[in-house]
């Protein structure tokens, strides 16, 4: 490919040559022109773009006149070599042209005119010949001889192309990076160089760097340039590459997608503009370069349109990116909009949209909505190939609602209908996990054993880990530990799985307070995973173990180290430190730690921990002086006034009230009573529509009134919050209070508020109380399954909650009412194994278990249970009376049976 043209030669036409020719003799024989005319003819042909004719004329000139003294003069020879060489290159005769131009380069000095151009052409000619090494030599020489020319960028770009052809990606990348660094290109040119660099990054598997290059814009964003087309074109493959490792980045890149038909249209005007390029030598050279780049872009678009990157694939990718980056609401919106859309691609995406919507709803705890999506799809599209996946998702909805048995039954039905489905084994594995989560360790273990034989080798470490959890739950601790040890040694197990095995193993030894074994496993973990993913969690376990072993000094040391890090696991360490200082009644340390903790959460933009605020209050009560300094107080007040939902505002008010005399000075309200200040604030918040702090002031007043026994006045304020404040704006504790009040008075807002709490605060400590209340509501409205699912969540997930024993008893009672004594027994087993259960609750649990025993044909244990109640809990008259009655009733039946 030659990049020079007629215009180029025009520019090169040398006046000195004509002068020289005027002096030479004029003769003609055998059709050969006189020397001057022959030369003029050669140059004329070259200027007219007749490269082949020009070459012939140059050849004839050399043959006939080459030995003439005028032609052998140095100046003439220099021009002859250059023009003849260029004519040869233009005619595609590289073998003839290259020696001529190389000789030219040899006899001219570095300052000679046209030197950069000739060097450039020589390198190009070598490249066309496939001699990359020689081309590189000349590019290198060009860069060293003409570092100031903007064409160095062009040379580096061609060099990078050559390196790519030789699969030297790293070196090609370095060349392109230098182009961008040297900044010799125009803005669109630089953006195109960035796109070329991004392509290299993608080939090297470095997606994040590609994103940086494509996302870069110097100054004003270049929204319409070819670089934008590259961006849209490369986005799908980038999203694919980044989806697992960097989902947020993948999601951002999915914003670059464009319609495939748009891309071709966008690039056409640029191709047309470049085709019209004419002018001087430089413009032609650059024009050819851009043309080549745009042709490359156009071929990439054509290739992409044939590779299935249509709208359907783009939307599918975007849905996945949204789900992976935890943008569940957006994934739900997109699914809903696509299901409404009349685009042909949308019709083909219905299964994906339903699946994504269900997945999003599950993560948003919109159980009913998830169920609606699944049911609609199952009803409307029974023949759709995506049906099995939706049926599995329906089972997942049940599992997420803690209705594990129902979920397992649904998966079993699905497996019966589709035993050969590609995901059958994965479904079985999940179902076994649900059995385990549902407290059915024995049947879960059986399923895992069965799966062990059928599953691929890579799955076996995971199955072993799950088996060990089943064994542990079944009380077979030794066997469980042996399996866990096996997983930690298994070469097939991933690092993460091995770490999980260590965590479970350590958990078992902590529970059993096995000092030596704990230390052994801990050291093993620390040696194997010094920077492990679960490192902080394990250190927390180590701290907990030290505390349980009566070594608070070590525990404090460990927790102090962990709490210094920026990680979600540090919250536990902070809480434990707080507990240690509280137990030691070391209030100065408690205050210091609380302030450090608050400072850290503010730095990390995390919610202000309630415990830390409580610690400040404890300090004030014990030491009688304010815990908050002026700066911290101002920061917290600012957060309250701007309605930050992450601030425990009511606790802050309590702290202020405790030491109002000091704080009023710091707040510049000296002399004003706290109650008046609070009222002023409340009115101000109402005027400014700051509903969260307004609600907090009202709820704080309500608590104060309640502590004075003025329950009705307190509830009036809480009802005012229900009436006036959008619950979306409330934080967990405020929403809990108003939901509780609405529930207490049986307001229609009760259920929606309780449900909203569950959606909005899935991990809050108040969740079990809300679950319990909502379960009662469902039960009263006859929705037994929903009620049981909620209580099962309390039973399995919130074992430390104060409501947990009540939830167990209620669930067991409902199981007995439903004629399911075995479920009642397993629920009561969880409760009776709890340490420190109050006697009244133990007696009630034993009575229920005795009832179950009689129903399950286990009269001996039933009688024994009743006798124990009578012997151990005589103080609880109603329970003993019912135990006595149960005993008598069953002795009678037993006697009749014997008779």
């Amino acid at each position, binding site marked *: 490919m030659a990049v020079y043209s007629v215009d180029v030669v025009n520019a090169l036409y040398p006046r000195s040559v004509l002068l020289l020719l005027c002096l030479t003799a004029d003769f003609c024989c055998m059709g050969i022109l006189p020397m001057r005319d022959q030369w003029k003819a050669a140059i004329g042909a070259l200027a007219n773009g007749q490269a082949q004719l020009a070459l012939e004329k140059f050849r004839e000139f050399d043959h006939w006149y080459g030995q003439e003294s005028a032609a052998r003069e140095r100046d003439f020879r220099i021009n002859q070599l250059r023009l003849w060489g260029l004519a040869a290159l233009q005619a595609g005769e590289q073998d003839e042209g290259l020696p001529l131009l190389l000789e030219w380069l040899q006899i001219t000095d570095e300052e000679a005119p046209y030197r950069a151009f000739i060097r450039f052409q020589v390198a190009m000619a070598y490249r066309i010949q496939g001699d990359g090494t020689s081309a590189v030599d000349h590019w290198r020489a060009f860069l060293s001889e003409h570092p100031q020319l903007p064409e160095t960028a062009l040379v580096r770009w061609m060099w990078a192309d050559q390196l790519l052809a030789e699969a030297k990606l790293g070196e090609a990348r370095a060349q392109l990076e230098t182009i961008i660094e040297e900044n010799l290109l125009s803005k669109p040119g630089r953006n195109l160089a960035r796109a070329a660099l991004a392509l290299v990054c993608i080939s090297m598997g470095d997606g994040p760097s590609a994103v940086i290059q494509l996302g870069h814009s110097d100054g004003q964003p270049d929204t319409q340039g070819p670089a934008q087309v590259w961006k849209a074109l490369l986005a799908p493959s980038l999203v694919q590459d980044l989806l697992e490792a960097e989902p947020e980045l993948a999601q951002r890149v999915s914003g670059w997608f464009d319609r495939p038909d748009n891309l071709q249209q966008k690039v056409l005007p640029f191709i047309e503009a470049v085709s019209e390029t004419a002018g001087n030598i430089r413009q032609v050279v650059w024009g050819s370069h851009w043309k080549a780049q745009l042709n490359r872009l156009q071929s990439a678009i054509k290739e992409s349109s044939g590779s299935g990157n249509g709208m359907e694939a783009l939307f599918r990718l*975007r849905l996945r990116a949204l789900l992976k980056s935890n943008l569940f609401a957006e994934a739900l919106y997109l699914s809903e909009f696509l299901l409404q*859309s009349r*685009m042909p691609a949308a019709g083909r995406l219905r299964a994906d949209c339903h699946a994504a919507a269900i997945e999003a709803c599950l993560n948003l705890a919109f159980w009913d909505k998830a169920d609606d999506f699944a049911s609609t799809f199952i009803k409307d599209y029974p023949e759709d190939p995506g049906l099995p996946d939706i049926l599995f998702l329906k089972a997942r909805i049940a599992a997420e609602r803690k209705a594990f048995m129902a979920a397992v039954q649904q998966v079993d039905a699905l497996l019966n209908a589709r035993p050969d489905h590609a995901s059958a084994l994965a479904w079985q594995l999940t179902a076994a996990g649900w059995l385990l989560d549902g407290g059915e360790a024995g049947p879960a273990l059986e399923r895992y054993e069965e799966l062990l034989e059928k599953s691929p080798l890579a799955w076996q470490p995971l199955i072993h880990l799950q088996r060990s959890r089943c064994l542990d739950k079944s009380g077979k601790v030794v066997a469980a530990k042996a399996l866990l040890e096996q997983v930690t040694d298994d070469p097939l197990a991933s690092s993460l799985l091995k770490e999980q095995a260590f965590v479970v193993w350590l958990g078992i030894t902590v529970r059993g307070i096995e000092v030596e074994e704990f230390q052994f496993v801990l050291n093993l973990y620390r040696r194997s995973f010094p920077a492990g993913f679960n490192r902080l969690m394990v250190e927390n376990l180590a701290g907990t173990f030290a505390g349980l072993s009566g070594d608070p000094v070590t525990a404090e040391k460990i927790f102090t180290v962990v709490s210094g890090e920026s990680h979600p696991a540090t919250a536990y360490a902070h809480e434990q430190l707080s507990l240690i200082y509280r137990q030691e009644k070391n209030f100065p340390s408690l205050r210091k730690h609380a302030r450090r903790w608050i400072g850290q959460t503010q730095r990390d933009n995390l919610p202000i921990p309630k415990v830390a605020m409580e610690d400040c209050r404890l300090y004030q009560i014990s030491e009688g002086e304010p815990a908050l300094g002026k700066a911290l107080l101002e920061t917290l007040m600012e957060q309250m006034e701007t309605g930050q939902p992450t601030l425990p505002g009511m606790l802050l008010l309590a702290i202020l009230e405790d030491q109002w005399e000091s704080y009023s000075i710091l707040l510049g309200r000296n002399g004003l009573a706290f109650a008046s200040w609070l009222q002023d604030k409340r009115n101000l918040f109402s005027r400014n529509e700051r*509903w969260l702090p307004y609600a907090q002031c009202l709820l704080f007043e309500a608590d104060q009134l309640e502590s004075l026994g003025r329950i009705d006045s307190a509830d009036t304020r809480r009802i005012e919050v229900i009436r006036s404040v959008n619950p979306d704006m409330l934080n967990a504790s405020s929403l809990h209070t108003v939901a509780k009040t609405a529930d207490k008075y049986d307001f229609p807002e009760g259920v929606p508020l309780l449900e909203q709490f569950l959606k909005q605060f899935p991990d809050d400590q108040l969740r079990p109380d809300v679950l319990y209340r909502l379960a009662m509501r469902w039960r009263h409205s006859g929705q037994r399954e929903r009620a049981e699912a909620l209580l099962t969540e309390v039973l399995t997930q919130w074992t430390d909650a104060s409501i947990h024993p009540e939830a167990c008893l209620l669930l067991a009672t409902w199981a007995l009412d439903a004629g399911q004594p075995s479920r009642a027994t397993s629920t009561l087993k969880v409760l009776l194994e709890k340490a420190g259960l109050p006697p009244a609750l133990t007696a009630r649990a034993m009575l229920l278990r005795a009832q179950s025993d009689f129903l399950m044909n286990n009269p001996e244990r039933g009688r024994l249970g009743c006798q124990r109640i009578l012997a151990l809990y005589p103080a609880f008259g109603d329970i003993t009376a019912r135990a006595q009655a149960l005993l008598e009733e069953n002795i009678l039946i037993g006697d009749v049976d014997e008779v």
Partner: protein
Amino acid sequence: MRSEKLIVAATLFLAITVAAEALQISGVTKEGMSFAGNLISTAETELLLERERGAATTQLGIPLDSIASISLVESAQDPLLAMEAFPHLLDFLDEASRKRLLKAVVESVELGDWSSGYHWTSQLLQLEWTRETEMLLGIYRAWCLFEMGLFGASHEATLKIAEEIDPMEASARFCWLMAHLAVKAGEVAEARKWISLPTLQIPSRTNALAIELQSLLMETGPSRRRAVP
């Protein structure tokens, strides 16, 4: 309480009183004869043109039923202001003039002239347009109603468009309207859905309006809720 009819009446009154300048038009009759001049007035059956010939001025009456098409002559005159008094001529306008008028209406709405915008979008919607232009006019009309505080009427107009529009092709302005109407109705979740839509479409809309819409998320403060019964 303002009503849609009242607004229209007030708008027309204002418009007619200010339409003082004569409108320059040219046109062709059904027989192929050309005519041009300043439009003085229109009666039920004919329009009256004034033409200058040297120092003299002549008047020409053209029966409306003989007119094939009318073209607005390009001038510095505001086409909306000039056409205000002659709405019944809209049917005769050629395509270029209609487009000029449409452009002027869009500009007028974007500059915040809600009452004129409402009047003209309603007028232009009486004509035949492509589906896309009809949607655009409908959206701009609903936008004017919203800005004039007629939320109910705006909501009704928007819902009609929503039935026809494909959400994956909905303009940022339509999303803006749906989101704001949802906020007004206290439906925060619905508002969030429409706020997100421009960024979920392919290609994502990243224009200034889409960005402004994102900021609505921050501004959607709580709305007062109904009292507990």
